């Protein structure tokens, strides 16, 4: 625990410098990189986000050229050239990264990156961590010179243990972070998933819920629930609700048990502040508040950060810096707070940042290396989505290597399927498998608890093995009826049966079948001909010419193809209907036949003029904006397929985005309400439209009602709800 936080103004910074050329000879002439950002981007493993950002090397020759150039640069050279914002400023995230041990920095500054890498490979773990204290996130770019063995070798030697209620990251341990997410924060579902994880010796790092509703009241309620569950089980671990830091601090003010303070971080200030609404000052305040009022007695650490390669790129706020470097800058920021744990969720975003299994594997190993080198307790949420070319076996191969590289913990998402966030992570079955394969144990206090409950046991040789109570969540319930009630409220369970540390094959088959259906929904082509039996759809092409480009580059689907809009003229209708496949054409095919006829009936009956519906292949949500602008519509009803998750039926889930084009007369009010001066649209969303969610006929009625209100109040989204509430008194 740092005694205090270095004031930003006291962190010594080099002055920004103009970009320099880095050049070497190639087989067909000189290869040139303009500026460090370009060089660092080209030196990395090839990854989708860097390719889309124009930072990845064009080919292997260019990559090796960049690595060779980087290898020859000194640490001092890179250190003295801070990567600046577009307006030439050193942002606060970069500034914090420069809070290094000056003495160590002076020691390593003369080394080239090649020499630094060699020294790290020869060093003990403790020595590597010592050297890391002299590095910024940018100078940790030594990772770009490492192959897979080297990333694992260095990371494996490093242990950065931390302590809250349990000691996390001690050698020989492999912990897990239990994530009992539920789509409606139903306490029964959260309880069941918590019991299930605990019954499989998961959760020693933390039990943490991503709330479905990020309000102070709900976050406090979930915290109290987790506290109650933990106390009932007497499990030595800690709890957290992963809401915004402001929400958690407000919950703490209300007496909620905020044991560990969570926040997502980003490697540029533009993302951290502009997208996450977080400043270094706010994080400082959170750290100090928890130091004063954190409820876990004896805790040496109390902060928990999540990061992941590519978030800055996906928000378009990466400042021209590659994904590995922005990720390392997150770690340089996190280091300031000596956190209890870091969770890296590279893979959560999708194929626009990491296209396939190898990109995820390489990124995850880099992140583990970087985080450990910078002194952090690194866990990896090795995850994937169904619209990327990655899947369970790729994830498993990655986690095997990460376990070999000494990852502190993995996630426990029951049966790999997050029921709230539509993505796939490691499970308690995976964690137990990895412990058995790599000879690891849970954290000490938690291990004792597991042994005491018979969840784990020691065999004749003293080896920790699964005990008779392993995988029996019902043992945490007071009665079979109580357990049945919890089960009845929890989706995507698929079965509790096991085979050794794995789910029984029947269970695994169900899990994989649901994933297969979801993945098929992503790749099913939109059948425009079928839709034309419902209405004389007009087709509009997006800039995503192919399905691959649609998945890999979301921005393409958000705009019409070049010249496409010119085919349309302004129309006298206040409303236009736009249908897009989004990430599930199946959702369109299954819902439109019942939704569209009633929607057209309702709009006509209410006297609301609507143009002939439009349909776009490879569309994204934002496509509604240029379409509405061009057609002069006040409102575009955009019906679009949602990202499939782990439930086959839900892979047919559609959303309706009601995108209201703000007239000049209300733009000031909208700007004031949103805090966004340049606001041009407000959006009301009706989601979860499918047979087992909001049936399409009901969705049609809701859309008609919302449309009428939006047009009457000249507002959408939160501002509309506020106006309606005010009118209702």
């Amino acid at each position: 625990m740092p005694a205090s936080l270095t004031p930003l103004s006291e962190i010594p910074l080099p002055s920004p410098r103009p970009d320099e050329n880095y050049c070497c000879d190639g087989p067909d002439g000189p290869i040139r990189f303009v500026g460090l950002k370009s060089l660092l981007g080209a030196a990395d493993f090839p990854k989708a986000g860097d390719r889309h950002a124009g930072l990845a090397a064009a080919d292997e020759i260019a990559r090796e050229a960049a690595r060779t150039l980087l290898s020859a640069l000194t640490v001092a050279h890179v250190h003295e050239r801070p990567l600046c914002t577009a307006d030439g400023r050193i942002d606060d995230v970069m500034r914090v990264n420069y809070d290094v041990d000056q003495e160590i920095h002076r020691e390593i500054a003369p080394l080239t990156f090649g020499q630094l890498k060699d020294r790290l490979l020869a060093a003990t773990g403790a020595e590597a961590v010592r050297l890391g204290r002299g590095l910024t996130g940018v100078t940790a770019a030594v990772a770009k010179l490492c192959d897979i063995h080297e990333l694992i070798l260095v990371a494996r030697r490093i242990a950065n243990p931390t302590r809250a209620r349990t000691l996390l990251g001690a050698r020989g341990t492999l912990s897990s972070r239990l994530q009992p997410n539920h789509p409606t924060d139903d306490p029964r579902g959260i309880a069941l998933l918590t019991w299930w994880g605990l019954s499989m010796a998961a959760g020693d790092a933390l039990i943490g819920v991503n709330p479905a509703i990020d309000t102070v009241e709900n976050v406090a309620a979930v915290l109290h629930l987790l506290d109650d569950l933990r106390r009932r089980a007497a499990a030595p671990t800690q709890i957290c609700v992963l809401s915004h830091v402001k929400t958690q601090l407000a919950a703490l003010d209300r007496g909620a048990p905020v044991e560990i303070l969570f926040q997502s971080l980003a490697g540029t200030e533009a993302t951290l502040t502009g997208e996450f609404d977080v400043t270094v000052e706010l994080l400082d305040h959170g750290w100090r508040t928890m130091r004063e009022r954190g409820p876990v007695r004896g805790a040496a650490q109390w902060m928990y950060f999540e990061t992941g390669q590519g978030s800055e790129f996906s928000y378009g706020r990466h400042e021209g810096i590659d994904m590995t470097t922005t990720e390392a800058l997150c770690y340089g920021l996190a280091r300031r707070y000596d956190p209890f744990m870091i969770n890296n969720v590279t893979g959560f975003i999708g194929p626009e940042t990491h296209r396939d299994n190898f990109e995820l594997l390489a990124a995850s190993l880099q992140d583990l290396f970087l985080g450990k080198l910078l002194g952090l307790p690194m866990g990896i949420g090795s995850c994937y989505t169904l619209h990327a070319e990655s899947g369970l076996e790729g994830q498993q191969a990655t986690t095997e290597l990460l376990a070999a590289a000494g990852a502190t913990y993995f996630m426990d998402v029951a049966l790999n399927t997050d029921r709230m966030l539509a993505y796939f992570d490691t499970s308690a079955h995976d964690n137990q498998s990895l412990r058995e394969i790599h000879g690891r144990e849970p954290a000490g206090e938690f291990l004792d608890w597991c042994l005491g409950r018979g969840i784990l046991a020691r065999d004749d040789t003293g080896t920790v093995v699964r005990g008779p109570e392993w995988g029996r969540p019902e043992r945490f319930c007071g009665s079979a009826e109580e357990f049945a009630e919890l089960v009845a409220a929890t989706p995507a369970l698929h079965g509790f049966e096991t085979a050794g540390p794995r789910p029984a094959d029947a269970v695994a088959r169900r899990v994989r079948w649901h994933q297969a259906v979801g993945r098929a929904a992503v790749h099913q082509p939109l059948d425009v001909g079928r839709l034309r039996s419902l209405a004389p759809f007009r087709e509009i092409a997006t800039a995503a010419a192919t399905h691959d480009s649609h998945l890999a580059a979301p921005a393409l689907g958000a705009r019409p193809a070049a010249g496409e809009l010119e085919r349309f003229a302004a129309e006298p209708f206040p409303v236009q209907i736009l249908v897009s496949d989004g990430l599930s054409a199946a959702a369109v095919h299954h819902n439109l036949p019942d939704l569209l006829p009633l929607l057209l009936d309702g709009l006509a009956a209410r006297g609301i003029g609507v143009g002939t519906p439009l349909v776009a292949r490879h569309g994204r949500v934002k496509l509604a904006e240029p379409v509405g602008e061009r057609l002069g519509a006040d409102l575009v009803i955009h019906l679009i397929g949602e990202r499939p998750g782990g439930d086959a039926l839900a892979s047919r889930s559609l959303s309706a985005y009601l995108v209201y084009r703000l007239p000049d007369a209300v733009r000031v009010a909208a700007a004031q309400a949103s805090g966004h001066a340049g606001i041009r649209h407000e959006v009301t969303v009706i989601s979860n439209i499918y047979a087992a969610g909001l049936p399409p006929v009901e969705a049609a009625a809701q859309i008609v009602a919302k449309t009428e209100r939006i047009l009457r109040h000249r507002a959408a989204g939160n501002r509309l709800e506020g106006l309606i509430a005010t009118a209702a008194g």
Partner: protein
Amino acid sequence: MTAAARSILVGLDFGTTTSSALVAEAAVRRNAVTGRMELAVVRETYRSPLVFTPLVGERLDLAATLGLVDGWLACGGVGHGGDGIAGGGALVTGLTARRDNAASLVAAIRERLGTALVATADDPCLESWLAFQGSCAPLSRRHPDRSFIHLDIGGGTTNIASGRDGDVEATGCLFVGARHVRFVPGTRRIVSLTPLAGAAFTALGIAARPGDDLLPDDLDRLLDWYLALLGRAVAGAAVDPADRAWLGHLQVPFLPPGRPAGSDPPIVTLSGGVGELVYAAAGGTPLPGTTAFGDLGVDLARRLLTHPAWSRSWLEYRPEGGGRATVAGLLRHATRISGASIHLPDRAVLPLADLPIVGTLSPDVDDALLGRVLELARRCSGGAAVRVRGMQATAEMVRGFGGRLATALAAGGWPAHLPLVLLLDTNCGQALGQAATAWGRLGVPLVVVDELDLPDARWATLGAVCDGVVPVSFHGLR
């Protein structure tokens, strides 16, 4: 657990012998598995002691009873006028329901607690249904392949219900209970007999009357006869109340569904005061002394403990609830919750109490029947409800049936002040309501409430909108 405000559920049971209350904090939330809205108990906040139902002579002591109610509600944190109550029920049961001022108690409770909860007297099938739900249903769900017959034996009645996998299949009611014969506690000295007990004494040749001691042989004969009645009911022979063999003790016939030949017999479970004694004794707690409660309860329990066919079940199949099955059922099961997307153009239409349910429609109903049902509804001065079964959430069905409803409503000139409520079991209430009002162009105060289990009941009560859903309760179950 959402941002939604917590609600309160209240259960009040005024039985032949005892009365009790339960208060709980509840939350409206969507079940992520079924997709349906639920009004789920978060925690029980108050459980009253069981008290003797206050009587003055043959009438309810209204002042004392309402004093009890006020005390219970205060202990349960219920605000004045029932603020925050989302549902539950108040039920006057057994012989208490037959006292001539039972209706006054119901009216006074409704005045105190509003219309969010069902309040009624003498609704034996509702009582049987609630007792099963409040006691046996979880056990039944644990054994989904077995049939259960649940006997809620109180002071005046035995409410009987059969069910499978948590669902009630049939209900009935017998006038068999502990309080038909009252004794000086600790003795066999008879204090009073109900007219039914008097008839039974006569038919069985028992000469004893109030002031006499009931002789052991006579007690045995009486208990044999009561157990035989229960046995006949469980066997499915409680069919005809006019059958003189029942001596007027069959209040509501009980017709459990037939079982395939060779299937296991139903498992008999108990609740009510007598049931509580049986399970306690089966678990090793000695029965109280002779007529400890001044009635037949201990003797009935002793006989049930040695019943040749049923007694094996007492240890193996123990339901919840004990003597509070009805009040637990009232608290947790009396109120259903609509879906979140309903047709309610004007919230001020609700609440609506005791709406008669005038009929059942299906989407393929012929125009003549559709017209007759709407005409029946129109004649109800305070509004009416109609069940709609077989509705599917398809555009074709919503347009078709909704359009026909709109035509019929427009043709009949439906009064603008008269609420009409459609009760649906599927999730298409908002769409059907829009289609049935020509998307709002018809000025009909139509309410369409969906995603309800629709019992065969005579009346429905709709509470005010609570967290976007409507609490609905039914009474007058058939």
